């Protein structure tokens, strides 16, 4: 047997290891997504068993308890964004007439959905991972399987559906608050006429569509990523802790990556103009 | 001012959420003695020793240590006390992110001002004294309960305390390891002159090691005697505890 592998080989291995791990994780993630979608078909198709009120209960858990959190954070960030945008516009173009339109576009098609989802990723993602993770670690998932229930059907499907609905709902609320707070700031700090700001004719359907698509995608991604992390929890309560933090980071990053992908996609679709 | 015992509890009262646990406890502990505090679960044994090192404040009464009153001290005021009164917790509470050696070296570094390497070397020596030399580089999670307890004792001794409090040192241990701990406690007292206050309900330990035994019942020291005197006591409540009978004159709340 020769001596230890040479440096180039070791470097390649060091680079390759995380790539292989990432690839495997991505495949498993897809597996969870497909499994969840299959679970939806199973539950709502012919002869499917649907736990009564499960989706509604999850909607309450996600939505009602994140309401104030989302409202407060998006309100503040809206004010800040508008402030910076106004500064930027005065410096670059010298007039603030376009600020309302551009800010609206940004809020509806990007920051509204994305920031709402990032807030939800921390709150909801952690919760889902912790619940599923501790059930896995205490072998309750195995117990579920023994009674003929697939954990994905029972645990993930209601949360998946609820998350999509509530993410969209909270995004609408969050975007409205963000835009309103921004409008207030523009009016109070920069003297922008509120009437030019709150003109309903400014809302462009393609921005709305993009925003909705993003909200739905984020709403789907968060429970999938968090559920995936929860299902991978190992060991004891420490393992659940790791799963929770991984879920928060993973969901947040997924939101950013998806935002980027969808924005680029929209750009391409609209021919280089937004 | 009357000459006080080395450690003295006077009329100590403590209640948790309205429920009284200690109801006027008086106890004097002499320097260099091994005193066992015994009684049923929940009677306030651990609470008593926690008061002495300031982990729990008392509601009423006085606690004296070496001529100084300690029950009114704040957290920082207790630090000089904790250098002289060590505590070995029931579940050893070793730092699970460090090896045994690092566990024992930490107080050496902090209090003896040793450099890291010197502290590690001294720690190894101390672990060898409690027969843990072969496990010095293991993590607490890899060891048995008995080994963890011995390591915790070694760690507490790094401060060269004059008093060591033991919270149920042999509970949960097999008989062989329990006797090892007993022997350690005896050696501490004989060779280092340490005053040991041991909370326990391990009868063989009590009979073999204690100089005196304080039997706690209904929040007070119900009986205070040498182990043999206690075993021969005519008091029915003491007898029920020693004989380990489930029914008798003792009121056991919660059953």
């Amino acid at each position, binding site marked *: 047997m020769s001596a230890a592998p040479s440096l180039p080989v070791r470097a390649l291995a060091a680079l390759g290891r995380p790539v292989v791990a990432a690839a495997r994780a991505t495949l498993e993630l897809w597996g969870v997504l497909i499994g969840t979608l299959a679970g939806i078909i199973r539950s709502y198709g012919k002869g499917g068993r649907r736990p009564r009120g499960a989706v509604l209960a999850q909607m309450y858990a996600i939505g009602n308890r994140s309401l104030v959190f989302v409202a407060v954070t998006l309100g503040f960030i809206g004010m800040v964004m508008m402030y910076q945008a106004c500064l930027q516009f005065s410096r670059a173009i010298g007039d603030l007439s376009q600020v309302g339109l551009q800010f609206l576009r940004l809020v509806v098609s990007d920051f509204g959905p994305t920031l709402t989802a990032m807030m939800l990723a921390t709150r909801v993602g952690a919760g889902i991972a912790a619940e599923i993770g501790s059930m896995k670690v205490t072998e309750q998932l195995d117990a579920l399987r023994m009674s003929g229930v697939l954990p994905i059907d029972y645990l993930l499907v209601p949360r998946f559906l609820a998350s999509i609905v509530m993410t969209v709902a909270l995004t609408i609320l969050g975007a409205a608050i963000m835009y309103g707070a921004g409008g207030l700031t523009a009016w109070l700090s920069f003297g922008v006429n509120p009437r030019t700001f709150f003109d309903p004719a400014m809302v462009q359907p393609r921005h709305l569509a993009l925003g909705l698509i993003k909200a739905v995608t984020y709403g789907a991604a968060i429970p999938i990523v968090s559920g995936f992390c929860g299902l991978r929890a190992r060991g004891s309560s420490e393992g659940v802790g790791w799963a929770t933090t991984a879920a928060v*980071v993973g969901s947040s990053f997924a939101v950013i990556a998806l935002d980027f992908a969808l924005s680029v996609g929209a750009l391409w679709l609209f021919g280089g103009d937004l | 001012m009357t000459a006080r015992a080395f450690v003295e509890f006077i009329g100590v009262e403590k209640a948790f959420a309205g429920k009284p646990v200690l109801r006027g406890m008086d106890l004097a502990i002499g320097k260099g003695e091994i005193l066992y505090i015994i009684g049923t679960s929940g009677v306030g044994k651990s609470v008593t020793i926690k008061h002495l090192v300031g982990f729990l404040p008392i509601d009423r009464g006085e606690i004296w240590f070496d001529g100084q009153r300690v029950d009114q001290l704040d957290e920082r005021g207790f630090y000089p006390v904790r250098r002289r009164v060590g505590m070995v917790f029931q579940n050893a509470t070793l730092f699970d992110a460090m090896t045994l050696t690092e566990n024992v070296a930490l107080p050496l570094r902090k*209090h003896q001002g040793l450099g890291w390497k010197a502290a590690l070397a001294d720690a190894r020596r101390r672990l060898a004294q409690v027969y843990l030399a072969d496990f010095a580089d293991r993590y607490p999670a890899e060891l048995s309960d008995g080994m963890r307890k011995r390591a915790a004792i070694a760690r507490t001794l790094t401060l060269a305390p004059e008093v060591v409090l033991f919270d149920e040192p042999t509970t949960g241990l097999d008989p062989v390891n329990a006797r090892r701990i007993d022997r350690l406690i005896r050696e501490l007292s004989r060779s280092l002159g340490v005053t040991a206050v041991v909370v326990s309900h391990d009868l063989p330990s009590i009979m073999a090691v204690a100089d005196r035994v304080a039997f706690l019942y209904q929040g007070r020291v119900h009986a205070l005697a040498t182990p043999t005197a206690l075993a021969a006591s005519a008091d029915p409540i003491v007898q029920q505890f020693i004989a380990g009978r489930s029914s008798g004159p003792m009121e056991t709340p919660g059953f």
Partner: protein
Amino acid sequence: MIGERTLTLLGARAIAVTREVGGIALMTGQVLRALLPPRLDGRELVRNLHRMGNRSLPIVALTAFFAGGLMVVQSAPFVKRLGATSLAGWAAGYAVLREIGPILIGLMFSGRVGANNTAELGTMTVTEQLDGLRALAIDPIRYLIVPRVLAMLIMLTALTIIGDLVALVGAAVVAYLVLDIDWRTMYFSFADNLTPHDFFHGVYKSVAFGAAIALTSCYFGVTVKGGAVGVGRAVNAAVVAAAVSIMLLDFFITYATA
């Protein structure tokens, strides 16, 4: 009665929040007292710097890259329409340096390092290791908390600076690949228009965010009650508190350094 119940719930929530804010303020005071004069465990500081940096650099770099690209995608089309392509870099860079960079990197750091820290301290509290330290007459604030607070503060600032650079690179890359704006235009757009004030605006924020994340994560870690379930709840609470703090601090700093 719905009104009465809502009011009670709101009131209870308000009291809980006040208690937490008070507790965090108290801990801040203890940390500050341990820093003047600075007497803390140097070894622990170095160890934590190492761990926290290693743990979060990859995710921060990736996030920053995408954030930079995102801002370019959002701002460049509008800028192009105005015929001011040379401002494309500035438009994206301004937002990244002042807002997006510090906030997103802060949120990621909170999720990765802050949550882990709360879990660690929480587990130590629940297993009485914190009491163990106190019994050995070692001050947990000096030994455990202060090194972690400093490490998180320093690390987040460093990561934000690195992240800002990565974000600008990301912006340039995406501008080139997606919007056909070449490197040089972007580089000059950055260099000519972005001021040190823009850069430092973001750095001040990252220092504040670092302090907020550090203090909230430590506070929720050491006040855990209720075993393993309590640790989970503490992690959740810490991450949410950090996010709210970031948004609030962002608001105040933006207006204060106007």
